């Protein structure tokens, strides 16, 4: 829960728009949890831990001004970290289908690694706008996962949204669980398909974070605070929320289209 200032010890450009920063950070963390990443002189933004063991890590995709600044952070630069916050993935083994879009692999990858170590059999449906933006495909393969790919422009795998891949998998195979993280519209579709296929699903959700302590209400989503009740929710919980996939709160707290 305490803030610390740490040096970046490793920097990996994962895709043209996505960088991983590794740093020493002692507190124990579980896959699914996030930290508040302070870019000194700039904003502090929530980031899932993409590495929870050894040097911890975050994997940051450019979304706006601060995430763009993050791309220019070099080894030796110092960043502020507080956390870890939030809940974690339930890692019970079995056949798990992971559906990731955009930066969603950042949080799915460490969860998948942990599950693989417990004997889970992993299938990953991985989506991106284009081939070079596919995040952690190799990392998933290294842990023994089968990786099925979709790109919007067809430069790798199937052309189109990742839901085409995941829907096909759900239709043809049996899974014990489905995990998803990505754009909310995508997650909404994935969760609906999972429900139809009677596969218990969970998804990691994003909302504006300020305190990360369940206090300021910035991250409120229906009856939940994403920072303390989430970010991982069951598909059931999410499907029950009229806001999910439709509305989010901007920094002022005003509800705007998601």
């Amino acid at each position, binding site marked *: *829960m*305490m*803030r610390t*200032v740490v040096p970046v010890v490793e920097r990996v450009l994962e895709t043209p728009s996505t960088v991983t920063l590794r740093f020493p950070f002692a507190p124990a963390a579980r896959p699914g949890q996030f930290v*508040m990443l*302070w870019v*000194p*002189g*700039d*904003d*502090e*933004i929530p980031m899932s831990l993409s590495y929870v063991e050894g040097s911890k890590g975050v994997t940051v995709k450019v979304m706006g001004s601060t995430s763009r600044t993050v791309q220019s952070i070099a080894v030796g630069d*110092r960043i*502020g970290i507080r956390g870890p916050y939030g809940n974690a993935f339930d890692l019970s083994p079995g056949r798990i289908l992971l559906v990731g879009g955009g930066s969603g692999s950042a949080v799915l990858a460490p969860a998948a690694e942990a599950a693989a170590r417990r004997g889970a059999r992993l299938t990953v449906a991985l989506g991106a706008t284009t081939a070079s933006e596919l995040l952690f495909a190799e990392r998933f393969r290294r842990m023994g996962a089968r990786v099925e790919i979709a790109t919007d422009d067809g430069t790798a795998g199937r052309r189109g949204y990742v839901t085409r891949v995941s829907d096909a998998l759900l239709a043809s195979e049996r899974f014990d669980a489905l995990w998803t993280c990505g754009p909310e519209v995508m997650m909404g579709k994935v969760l609906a398909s999972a429900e139809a296929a009677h596969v218990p699903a969970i998804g990691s959700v994003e909302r504006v*974070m*300020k*305190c990360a*302590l*369940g*206090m*300021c*209400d*910035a991250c*409120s989503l*229906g*009856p939940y*605070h994403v920072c*303390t009740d989430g970010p991982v929710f069951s598909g059931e919980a999410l499907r029950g929320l009229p806001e999910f996939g439709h509305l989010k*709160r*901007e*920094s*002022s*707290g*005003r*509800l705007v289209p998601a």
Partner: protein
Amino acid sequence: MADLRVSWAGLSLRNPLILASGIWGESGASLAGAYEAGAGAVITKSIGAAPRPGYPNPTVEALDQWGFLNAMGLPNPGIEEYPKEIAVARARGAAVIGSVFGGSAEEFAELAGRMADTGVLAVELNLSCPHAEGLGADIGEVPEEVEAVTRAVRARVKVPVIVKLTPNTSDPVALARAAERGGASAVSAINTLKAIAIDIRLRRPVLSHGIGGLSGPAIKPIGLACVWQIARAVTIPVIGVGGIRSAEDVIEYLMAGASAVEIGTAVAFDGIGLFGRIASDLDRLLGELGLPSAASAIGLAQRAAAPAMPAAPSVRGNR
């Protein structure tokens, strides 16, 4: 079973524990959730005329378990949008008090009026946010301005008007008296104290705004002193705020002269469940202290000590 109900300024609350403004107060669902968790009433985030994003992060800094710094910058969806949230909370039966902030008496009156129109039980005027220049505290530090704002609001709304005072003053009593003169139904004290945290490794303030407000256990003795001084100087009820985390703390405030209390930062440390826990601890503790009700604790320490500490021994009186 002690009677936890308190009544003041025409309000009747099921217990004296009020959710402080700025905590769980942006969404109607959260307000209702806090009420259902056991609060006697809930106060909204302070609402202004237009949507405000607040300051960039970092906006908070937790100082161990005893203090908390924030400079949120009064983020709020604005008075146009916010009535929807209040409707959600009221539909679930929550006892809601609406907080507003503004830059002038006119703006306060206008906002309080629109807030009152939503059906809130009372309005609280945030005259005390320590980190939003020109809004709240700058006005709230000058008795004449406090009086003028209160009077303008009083003329505009029918519901009770609570004036929230700043501790960043040499004379909290003068501010409370000004609110009373202006027609306030009650005052609440205290908001946060101007404070800062420096990161020595990054050689800069932690909060993006630099100066923030200190809350949490660290300020309890300061809040108590404000309530203590104000309660003996005005006839309107005083609501105690600052550093409350336990039933003991609540009773300290009641005995110092508070008619109810607001709880904020402790939610970050203990979760929203603390309202229910404190309510049941309060019940038990009042019994242990031989007090039949929360109301019977109000001002007890004032009586022991007023006007000056007695010279005569009073050991027996404590049996």
